[in-house]
């Protein structure tokens, strides 16, 4: 596989802005959802007959429900500031991957259907009615947006293309045109409790396995409990944490931290998923249904607080949306933030000197940190704005001796998406995923050359899965990818302190 998709040689210097190359990615689009996957989410199973009218009607509905959409449709001045900010444009040169052009795919229909100017002078503002062609463009290019919000940072009006691609996907779903990857997974999480379809029995086995592995390695027993009513903490992790490397090493680390903190905890077999793809498809109802399971689990298990694992978009949903979707959390202990990020938990413990750490355990590593987009631009950690950048870095510096940041134009609020977020982590979009990873791969290459970086730590399940898959296309080894709590896990000296 590697080699089939062409990647440019990395320089580590500032990436050149590619010349526009119309249609370069026009033929790439995701697989369609099967009928059952759509109907399970209360969407029409197949494309409805009067889909054009229905789509326009839905757009009107969303314009009345979302201030973001209503305002963003009107106020773009086409200043061009966002045009070179999207990793997919930088990687492909396709002008429809410039954020403003992506927005225009919807705006042209908006103008035609909802504005006087567009009705009277369609040519002047490029107004266009909904058509088979427009739908094809939507299908393709609204699935070439990872909803990373990088464009919104540089827009003088904060126009967030993610809001528009979410709306577009919701409109398409509402007329029976759904994306397989997202809708299928949403079916699994709503039916089984997690995206991977791990049943309670298999989950129990996994936890047992982690427990045994850990004990074998450290000779200290750390518990990884499931469905334990009355535990202090309900841990909600992305299900990849139960499954593959380097996610599971991070999960092992969460357990050690709880152990050292002396806090009882449990996972839930009913709500064994932090990820919430309802956001990717823009469906408020679906997003709420997925989140609701977590509220129920927390309630039923009578926990005091909810702590969540390393997952970027899910942290956005948890941090920014949960309180609206499934709050108020008046049945939890109000002295804790709901939800608490595992990084907040760990950093708090480190600051209280509640855990003994042996940095030298990570001495063979030179570490850099990849800021995940939803954490960086759609959430916070701690009390101060920017805590989402500082806290993970502080943790890494507390557990590693060698840390270096990548080029500042590629980190923190300016961070580049891994290329696989937003519901695009599916094989048929591999071409896009590889090309979209170019800006990050290039910056990583820079610090590999200059500082000998051999580890890129991160706190997002999608980023981890994406990078392990696409970095080899850039001749970067996949085992560079690490969980932050994997580094923590290595450094924790079990039983070194009694937790507070």
């Amino acid at each position, binding site marked *: 596989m590697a080699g089939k998709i062409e990647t440019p040689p990395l320089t580590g210097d500032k990436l050149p802005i590619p010349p526009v190359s119309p249609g370069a990615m026009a033929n790439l689009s995701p697989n369609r959802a099967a009928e059952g996957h759509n109907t399970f989410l209360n969407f029409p199973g197949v494309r409805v007959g009067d889909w054009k009218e229905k789509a326009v009607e839905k757009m009107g509905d969303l314009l009345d429900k979302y201030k973001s959409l209503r305002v963003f449709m009107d106020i773009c001045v086409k200043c061009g500031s966002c045009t070179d900010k999207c990793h997919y444009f930088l990687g492909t040169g396709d002008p429809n991957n410039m954020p403003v052009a992506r927005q225009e795919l919807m705006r042209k229909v908006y103008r035609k259907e909802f504005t006087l100017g567009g009705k009277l002078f369609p040519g002047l503002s490029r107004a266009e009615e909904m058509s088979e062609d427009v739908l094809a463009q939507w299908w393709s290019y609204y699935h070439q947006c990872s909803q990373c919000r990088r464009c919104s940072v540089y827009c003088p009006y904060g126009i967030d293309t993610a809001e528009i691609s979410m709306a577009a996907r919701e409109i398409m779903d509402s007329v029976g045109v759904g994306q397989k990857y997202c809708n299928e997974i949403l079916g699994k999480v709503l039916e089984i409790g997690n995206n991977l379809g791990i049943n309670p029995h298999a989950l129990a086995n996994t936890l047992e396995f982690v427990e045994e592995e850990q004990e074998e390695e450290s000779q200290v027993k750390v518990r990884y409990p499931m469905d334990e009513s009355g535990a202090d903490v309900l841990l909600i992790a992305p299900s990849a944490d139960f499954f593959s490397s380097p996610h599971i090493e991070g999960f092992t680390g969460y357990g050690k931290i709880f152990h050292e903190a002396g806090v009882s905890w449990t996972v839930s077999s009913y709500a064994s998923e932090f990820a919430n793809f309802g956001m990717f498809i823009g469906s408020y109802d679906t997003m709420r249904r997925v989140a609701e399971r977590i509220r129920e689990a927390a309630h039923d298990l009578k926990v005091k607080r909810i702590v969540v694992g390393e997952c970027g978009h899910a942290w956005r949903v948890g941090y920014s949306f949960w309180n609206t979707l499934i709050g108020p959390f*008046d049945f939890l202990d109000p002295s804790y933030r709901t939800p608490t990020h595992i990084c907040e938990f760990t950093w708090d413990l480190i600051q209280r000197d509640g855990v003994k750490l042996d940095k030298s355990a990570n001495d063979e590593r030179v570490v850099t940190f990849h800021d995940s987009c939803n954490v960086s631009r759609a959430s916070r950690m701690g009390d101060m704005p920017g805590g989402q950048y500082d806290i993970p870095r502080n943790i890494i510096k507390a557990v590693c001796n060698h840390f270096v940041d990548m080029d500042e134009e590629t980190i923190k609020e300016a961070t580049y998406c891994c290329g696989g977020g937003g519901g695009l982590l599916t094989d048929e979009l591999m071409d896009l995923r590889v090309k979209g990873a170019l800006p990050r791969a290039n910056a990583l290459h820079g610090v590999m050359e200059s500082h000998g970086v051999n580890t890129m730590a991160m706190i997002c399940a999608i980023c981890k899965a994406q990078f392990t898959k696409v970095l080899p296309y850039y001749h970067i080894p996949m085992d560079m990818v690490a969980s932050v709590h994997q580094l923590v896990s290595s450094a924790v000296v079990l039983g070194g302190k009694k937790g507070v």
Partner: protein
Amino acid sequence: MTELNILSTIFASLSYMVIALFLLGVARKIYGYAATPSPLKIPTTPAPVSGGGVVIRMAREVILFESLFKGNKWTWLGGILFHVTFAVVLFRHLRYFTEPVPWLVALVAPVGILAGVGLLGAAAYLFVRRLAVDRVAYISSGADYFALILVGSLALTGLAMKFVFRTDVAMVKDFCMGIVTFSPANMPADPIFILHYLLVLTLGAYFPFSKLMHAGGIFFSPTRAQIDNPREARHVNPWADDVRVDKA
């Protein structure tokens, strides 16, 4: 007082129509922005954690174009020049609508002319940029060029009245005062002035129906106007059918 001639009657009526259209059109849009709910918290972070912080963030956007500065320095320069000079020119025009002229307006008058030149230059620069940068050319439509041509022509005709074809300023002032005091007076039958005024009316009528609404819309942009406090204060989605009411 002399009778209103036909030309002035037409323009006075047009003026009131455009003023009404502008006010109603902008009010309708702003009402739409304000009335549409925000179901979720979506500030682009890092974002202020208090209302005061949001005021400061918004001020930095509106006055300094902070995000544009981060995005593209040249466009920022062109944009700042365009908007600052436009504001100064508008301010200078207050002297046609006030009697006596406030001292500050009088003070700014000479700078106003300079600003007019700057505005023309900025419009020209932004126009050329639209054509020259391939990415911006790709996204630019007739409407984008139209807006720049409109403002550029306004600046050009305005400057022409100052430097080339001197207009009867006293008569312009009488006409303008007439409009704002609802007792229309005759306008100078000067082709450049008429053209200039026609462009003003076009701009006023076009404004509420165009991207020029960015001027009001930015204040409603949730990514910039929301406070980052979703865990601390529960944000309620007014249209969710399952709203749980907070227990008091």
